[in-house]
């Protein structure tokens, strides 16, 4: 891990971490010791659902009897722990995700963790991809179709690389069963800074500057660049982890085929099922031999 040299234990211990509403004392930091995997999702509900699945798989606890506790005191994010895995929510968009990543990485570092893997489990719009498919990101692009993530530090633009960890992607793929009922693909992703205009939708509040024909041309271009899906956090995620030297992957379920529709009209049950495909792919990895994780020997049923 590579960190800010001005950030150190002496200054940070017992200080107040605003975005988590958490005092960094020993008692709180101990809750974050011995972590290996950080699994992140936009929604707090999905983070809770994943925590329940992890409790079942890793501890043999029936989800009916398990409600995870948020380790921080702010509703900005939830952070649940099951063994050496954190199930975390990051909100929507790069700005929210980066706020989570900075704060969580500080806490994990102060708690003594140096060997971590960060995986985002997302939902996305597919480019000619069937809803229910799962995409692992190779490289993340800005909506201008430039790879990388632009940060303006003191008003000066810097573009950071956004290639995900190839080895981690391969380990995740290797952990999948041969008989999966949905497609698992590896390709590039776009992180947009909005759900509507930035993702070339026609169902936002503002009249677009583009036509349906422009959208078709843009999407055709994406296909030639092996861009399989659009979501809102892959660039910030990859740029952060590359700067911090933390292995990172992004696994996203496709909720809608944007070649066919802008609106997410699948029924709620279907959407939940689609989103769960991405969780399943990551759970397969977390519980595989490759991950060095022991699974519960007493799983009920």
């Amino acid at each position, binding site marked *: 891990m590579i960190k*800010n040299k001005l950030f150190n234990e002496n200054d940070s211990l017992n*200080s107040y971490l605003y975005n988590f509403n958490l005092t960094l004392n020993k008692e709180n930091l101990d809750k974050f010791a011995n972590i290996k995997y950080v699994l992140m999702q936009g929604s707090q509900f999905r983070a809770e659902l994943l925590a329940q699945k992890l409790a079942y798989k890793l501890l043999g606890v029936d989800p009916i009897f398990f409600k995870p506790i948020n380790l921080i005191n702010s509703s900005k994010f939830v952070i649940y722990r099951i063994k050496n895995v954190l199930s975390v929510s990051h909100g*929507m968009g790069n*700005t929210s995700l980066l706020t989570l990543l900075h704060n969580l990485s500080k806490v994990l570092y102060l708690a003594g963790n140096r060997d971590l893997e960060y995986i985002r489990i997302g939902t996305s719009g597919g480019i000619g991809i069937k809803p229910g498919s799962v995409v692992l990101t190779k490289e993340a692009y800005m909506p*201008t179709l430039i790879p990388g993530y632009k940060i303006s530090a003191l008003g000066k633009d810097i573009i950071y690389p956004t290639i995900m960890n190839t080895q981690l992607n391969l380990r995740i793929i290797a952990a999948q069963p041969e008989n999966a009922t949905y497609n698992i693909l590896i390709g590039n992703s776009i992180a947009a800074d*909005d*759900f509507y205009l930035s993702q070339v939708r026609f169902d936002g*509040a503002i009249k677009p500057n583009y036509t349906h024909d422009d959208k078709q041309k843009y999407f055709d271009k994406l296909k030639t660049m092996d861009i399989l899906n659009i979501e809102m956090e892959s660039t910030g995620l990859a740029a952060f982890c590359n700067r*911090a030297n933390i292995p990172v992957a992004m696994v996203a379920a496709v909720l809608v085929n944007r070649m066919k529709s802008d609106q997410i009209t699948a029924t709620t049950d279907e959407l939940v099922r689609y989103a769960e495909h991405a969780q399943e792919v990551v759970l397969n990895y977390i519980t595989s031999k490759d991950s060095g994780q022991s699974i519960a020997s007493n799983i009920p049923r």
Partner: protein
Amino acid sequence: MNFDKLNHEFLNLPVDYLYHLGIDNTLHLEELYRDVKFAVITQTNEDAMIISNTFAKEFYNIEENDFSCTPLYKTERFHFYKVGKAIIISAGIGMPSTLICLNEITKLFVHAKIYDPIFIYLSAADGLNCPIGSLVLNDKILNSKFEDKFTSVECGIEYYYPTHLDTELNNAIYNYGVNYTDYIILNGSSIGAYDFYDEQARLDGFLELNYTKEEHDAYLNNCKDIGVKSLNMESLAFAGFCNQLEIRGSIVSAIINDRFICDKVLIDIVEQNTIIRNAAHLYARFILSYNDQND
């Protein structure tokens, strides 16, 4: 709101799903919301609740403190409340999340036939050279390069939108606050940044910095010299969105720290909540007085 700039395609959909709010236009939105004039947008769920409770106390003369409003619809993404003539919603951290909220709130208003709304962004913010607890009405919104424009990438192309807010509305709130409340009310510019750390020139993030402490100090001084009094992560997109649709907008930054003293927030949650409550109280009173004068 300028109807020519509104997207008419969503009005022609058989059903319009406001996915992140968790509702669609088959609910009787006009019946439910026709008395609404104001949308108050904030960052966090806690603050949305504080604002809603403060509005409820003021609008309905509730003396007890021991009650709480209930958020409506899907609470997975945003917490949405309706209190009297206002809806209150938490839009999450940052411009991308806030833009999703603004789009869906605007669509909700159009479905409810509310064509002349007032949008208010009310949230905690970093302060520059103004006392903790002051309420800064932001009359000018800049990006982190000090340009008064919001950049939006649409179909791969960058577009720039102005970020000026309604001066008349701003002045009315300022005058109301100065004349009828004891809060410290200031006017000043705001910077809307895309990140809490690098883009807001902090030294206390996790990542290795590409600037020195001296450069950090110089940047904050430059901000102050051009009249910037607050930094947050939403104001630029809020102002850009309001300009695109010609919606009357107002931003109040509730100052919770002084960046010339420390990059970290030093006051505890109780004090933070009090400052948000004060800002909510100012707007609650203003909204009541606005109704008296204009409706």
